[in-house]
């Protein structure tokens, strides 16, 4: 079974149909549609991080580098005043990001634990300062994208990216595909090796697996998906800024993924929704939202052993 936990099946059955219907209720207020779109895009990013951290045991604080690169690669390779094809550029961006990840992973994956956290951070910061000091790419202030790509395949255009509702569905589809994809990978034989490496790399080597290569594959895959999320984010408002690459972005994603429940994959969606939701609500309630946000986070760590997903599982799986 692909979604092998009851909780996860429930979640998928509740979340996706609801998300599918959501825009119908929100026709008046396109802001909520955009907001949810942003959340879903970030959830894709968080999910790819969750896979790395929770499933592969590769803790990185440099994942935002790929998020930002997703945007900047587009800015660099796409012509400025000409609509390009969305799918073709998705492919380009994922491939280029994967190549970058291959190189960086090759260096970074020699270390482990905190050392890996720091060396991934180092590379991300280099990329951050590269774009932030650059003059060509708008430096600290960022760059605009003036023309959005079109999404036609063989002349049939499914989505109009300038239409927030269309864009919403594109992102929803992407989110579902990402979840599906990761589930597939986790269930696969490759996934078994990754789980083994996560739990006991030394033993896995002794059994004859080339741990480094497996890790590199996982890293590359997750990074490419991270870049895809960044690409979507860039397209949403047509705006790229180096702060997308900043370590604080990686940090937020890490927070959301831990909050959601490390390694559960679907927890990434929960974590992002809850975090962004809380943020949104508190921000509108009080100027000192930070205080309450912090207190709630602390409370949640203490109460939930394995994040929100873990908590839900405890509630739901017990009965079975």
């Amino acid at each position, binding site marked *: 079974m692909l979604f092998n936990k009851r909780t996860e099946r429930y979640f998928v059955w509740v979340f996706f149909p609801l998300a599918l219907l959501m825009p119908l209720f929100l026709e008046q207020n396109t802001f909520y549609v955009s907001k949810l779109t942003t959340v879903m895009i970030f959830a894709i990013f968080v999910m790819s991080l969750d896979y790395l951290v929770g499933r592969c045991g590769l803790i990185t604080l440099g994942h935002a580098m790929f998020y930002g690169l997703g945007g900047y690669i587009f800015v660099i390779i796409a012509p400025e005043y000409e609509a390009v094809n969305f799918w073709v550029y998705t492919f380009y961006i994922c491939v280029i990001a994967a190549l970058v990840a291959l190189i960086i992973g090759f260096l970074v994956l020699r270390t482990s634990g905190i050392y890996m956290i720091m060396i991934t951070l180092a590379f991300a910061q280099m990329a951050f300062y590269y774009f932030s000091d650059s003059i060509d790419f708008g430096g600290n202030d960022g760059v605009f994208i003036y023309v959005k790509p079109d999404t036609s395949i063989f002349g049939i255009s499914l989505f109009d990216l300038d239409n927030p509702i269309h864009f919403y569905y594109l992102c929803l589809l992407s989110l579902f595909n990402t979840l599906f994809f990761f589930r597939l990978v986790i269930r696969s034989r490759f996934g078994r090796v990754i789980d083994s490496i996560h*739990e*006991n790399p030394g033993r*896995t080597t002794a059994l004859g697996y080339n741990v480094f290569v497996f890790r590199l594959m996982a890293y590359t895959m997750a990074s490419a998906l991270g870049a895809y999320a960044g690409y979507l984010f860039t397209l949403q408002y047509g705006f790229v800024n180096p702060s997308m690459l900043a370590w604080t972005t990686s940090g937020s994603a890490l927070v959301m993924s831990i909050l959601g429940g490390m390694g559960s994959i679907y927890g990434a969606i929960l974590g992002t929704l809850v975090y962004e939701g809380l943020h949104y609500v508190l921000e509108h309630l009080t100027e000192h939202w930070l205080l309450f946000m912090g207190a709630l986070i602390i409370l949640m760590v203490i109460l939930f052993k394995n994040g929100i997903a873990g908590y839900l599982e405890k509630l739901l799986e017990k009965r079975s």
Partner: protein
Amino acid sequence: MNNAVILETEGLCKHWGGLKALDDISLKFHDRELHGIVGPNGAGKSTLLNLLCGHYKPTSGKIVHKGEAIDAIKPYAFARRGIGRSFQKTNIYPSATCLENCCVAVQRRMGGSFNFLRSRYRQQVLEEIATEALEKAGLGQRRDQVASRISYGEQRQLEIAMVLATSPCVLLLDEPMAGMGHEESQLIIELLKTLKREYCIVLVEHDMDAVFELSDKLTVMVDGQHLTTGTVDQVRDDPRVRDAYLGQGDEVY
């Protein structure tokens, strides 16, 4: 004996800083033989095994497997050549079931590890082989238990089951019986008796009953040096061995 030499070391040395944990060890391990290695604590037995399975790199010297020098290859490549090993300190996947522990080992050989799509739950063959390995090691009953929840002795059995599951041609066993009860030890002894008809086994063990019973050849090491190699009887009566290792009395502790 006239079995082919499968694994061989030539002048193998391993130094830790100033300490010569292994000093110029040249040994030959034959196919279908159980080669026992004994020696006082800290003699370098585990170190030798660690070198033979690629876990450590030798300071100097050569390791030859089926005629090829393999001391420079990567650790995982040792296992791929069929050199399997069990660890002195229990080394398993604690949160997975016993079956899953062995499946990981079987899968290496059966392939498909880079297959992102094929489900790991559709795996008749894999499970059969893994189950067989578990049963051989006497863990058939624990098949679906989570490894961290079985007792220490059972974890030692699992350790062996995992090596068997890789179906190696050379088995390096580091104190497989340590921590096991009599019955289990007996089981392992019987198991090794059948296995040694097919494999080359290198056994490091302090349980003298087992070693004497099983070994076709016995090497004694002391302080990183090779003391003697011979049949069980030759070694047992060697006064140097009694001095350094066995003790004088007849009692076996």
